[in-house]
């Protein structure tokens, strides 16, 4: 029975840990499918975490915090668009700028407003999102397998966890089943063809970036107003980059990106579980090395040991309209 309990907690944490990665990967998918590189997921996630925590603290509602986080992230996406779509600046440089700017600004403002070495005040239960327990979760826990899956793995997560998994089929539908999605993908593959069909390339990319900003805000809000009850410095801890690696590994496809995110989530859950555990034949692995596992996995996966990833063809290239 202990193995079951272990497995349940491992799968439960996998679902939870994958959540910000999924939002970020879906956000990145919109930007990159439209031909705009987005390394700034990291900075935006951090921004959302900060704004959501501060907003929720001041206004007493995590939903208001979330809305403010969305506004902040959409603004940053627009800034990225302004630099790299309108002014044709280097997209990677623009992303690096946003990341460094927000790493600095979030902590600097947290320190200026709240002291406390860059922490925001701890949110009360009214100011944050709480776990949702499914109806009858306790009642059917004793039923074998079903009870285990329903009560121990699926029930008891934050709202963002469920939203993240719901977002994947929706993103799939938008990108692959609607005319908007067709245009979006075409803009990323062959912008001049789209342009000659009378569709505004710049407007499409801005729209994609707007959706990108909304989605990434959920990832940040999940970190600071659900899983944790405050913002602390650099709390996104590379998740934006992991999500991007998952997106690339998933070949810019929602379903495969989801699988990659779950894989990262599982590895992370496993590394937390393995800390301090004595393994047969190996002994205890030092905690610092275990913590590096997700990052090593990212490198290994990106190295494409599972096939080369080919991205949208026009990615990273500013579109120059001919006159």
């Amino acid at each position: 029975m202990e193995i079951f309990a272990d497995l349940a907690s491992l799968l439960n944490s996998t679902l939870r840990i994958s959540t910000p990665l999924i939002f970020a990967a879906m956000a990145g998918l919109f930007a990159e499918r439209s031909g705009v590189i987005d390394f700034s997921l990291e900075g935006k996630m951090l921004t959302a975490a900060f704004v959501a925590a501060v907003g929720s603290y001041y206004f007493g509602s995590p939903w208001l915090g979330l809305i403010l986080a969305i506004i902040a992230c959409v603004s940053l996406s627009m800034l990225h668009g302004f630099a790299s779509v309108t002014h044709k600046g280097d997209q990677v440089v623009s992303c690096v700028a946003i990341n460094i700017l927000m790493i600095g600004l979030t902590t600097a403002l947290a320190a200026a407003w709240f002291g406390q070495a860059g922490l925001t005040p701890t949110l009360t239960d009214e100011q944050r999102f709480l776990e949702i327990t499914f109806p009858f979760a306790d009642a059917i826990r004793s039923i074998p397998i079903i009870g285990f899956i329903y009560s121990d793995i699926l029930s008891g997560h934050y709202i963002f966890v469920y939203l993240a998994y719901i977002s994947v089929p929706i993103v799939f539908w938008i990108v692959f089943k609607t005319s908007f999605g067709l245009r979006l993908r075409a803009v990323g593959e062959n912008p001049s063809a789209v342009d000659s069909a009378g569709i505004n390339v710049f407007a499409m990319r801005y729209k994609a970036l707007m959706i990108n900003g909304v989605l990434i805000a959920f990832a940040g809000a999940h970190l600071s107003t659900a899983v944790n009850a405050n913002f602390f410095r650099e709390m996104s801890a590379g998740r934006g980059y992991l999500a991007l690696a998952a997106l690339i590994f998933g070949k810019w496809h929602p379903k495969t990106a989801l699988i990659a995110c779950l894989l990262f989530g599982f590895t992370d859950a496993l590394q937390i579980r393995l800390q301090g555990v004595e393994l047969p034949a190996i002994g205890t692995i030092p905690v610092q090395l275990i913590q590096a596992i997700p990052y090593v996995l990212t490198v290994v996966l990106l190295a494409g040991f599972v096939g080369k990833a080919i991205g949208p063809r026009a990615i990273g290239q500013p579109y120059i309209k001919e006159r």
Partner: protein
Amino acid sequence: MSSAVDKSKVPWWVSNLIVPIVNLILALLVSALFIFIAGENPIEAVKLIIYGSFGYIEGFAYTLYYTTNFIFTGLAFAVAFHCRLFNIGGEGQAYIGGLGVYFAAIHFSFLPVPIVWILAIAGAIVFGGAWAFIPAYLQAKRGSHVVITTIMFNFIASSLMIYLLVDVIRDTNQMGPHTIAVAKELWFPTFKEFGELIGIKVRYSPLNLSFLLAIAASVFVWFLVWRTKWGYEMRAVGHNTQAAIYAGISPYKNIIIAMVISGGLAGLLAINEVLGVHHKIVSGFPAGYGFTGIAVALMGRNHPIGIFPAALLFGILYQGGSEVTFDMPNISRYMFVAVQGVIILFSGALENLFRPQVESFFVNKLNIRKKG
């Protein structure tokens, strides 16, 4: 948005001097706004920055000490950037470079001091370069984007070094996670000792011989990038990979060379920190200098002559900034990280924001003068 003026008519000093200065001013204005939002007076902050970095001799020495670090990491980013590679792993490469310095200084301490120094410099370059080699190889052969892999390598380097510092090479007589100190005669002479030599008394500052190494590295980078076949090939690959392939230049080879040299330069940061300041490896010694190198290189337009003033500016911001954080409780050192981001934004991504206006303004002005 096409350029308003004929590029060939724009004098070099307008596009390479006036435009960057305009961008810098914009960035500093936005930064002033941040300081205002944080609840402090930006003008007072500027006064403190200038006093802290120039107001007294030790302050200025501190400024040059930071400048040294930024020259190394700025050059590192610039070399890779000429091959169109974004090496944002300077942080990890410098950290690992520290191992090379430390091992050379510990295991070869029986050799004459100058030889150990050379070995330590070689160690910094080799270890830093090796840490950049893997992302370079993966970029060249497998197409894994160097931005993600170098960031991952920063995280991995940090984990690895903490592990080593806690469990393997830690000074067991001390509490903190750091190594034992290297032999005292190997410590790089400091500015204070130079001062004593010529009869000037100054108090301690971390400025040391590494500053001259940074200048030498700048000359080396200039020579490498603009005066050698390697540099030419690297730039060719960066400028137009397809054309380079047709000219018989291998992008794989050049991606790896550019990244390894870049990593080696980042590794040199460890010379300044390990031999010059701490005299041992302390946990987290790269302290963000690697990231600042990005801003330095972009502001300096990836040329050693531009990188020096850019590094100096960041030295001023760091040293002056610590004066500000001391006097202004609402400003933390993270504010200056944000300032870096703004500078990268305006002198990198948005460098063309006002370029057409500025260029056409000067071209028109010059034309009027010629006609008159």
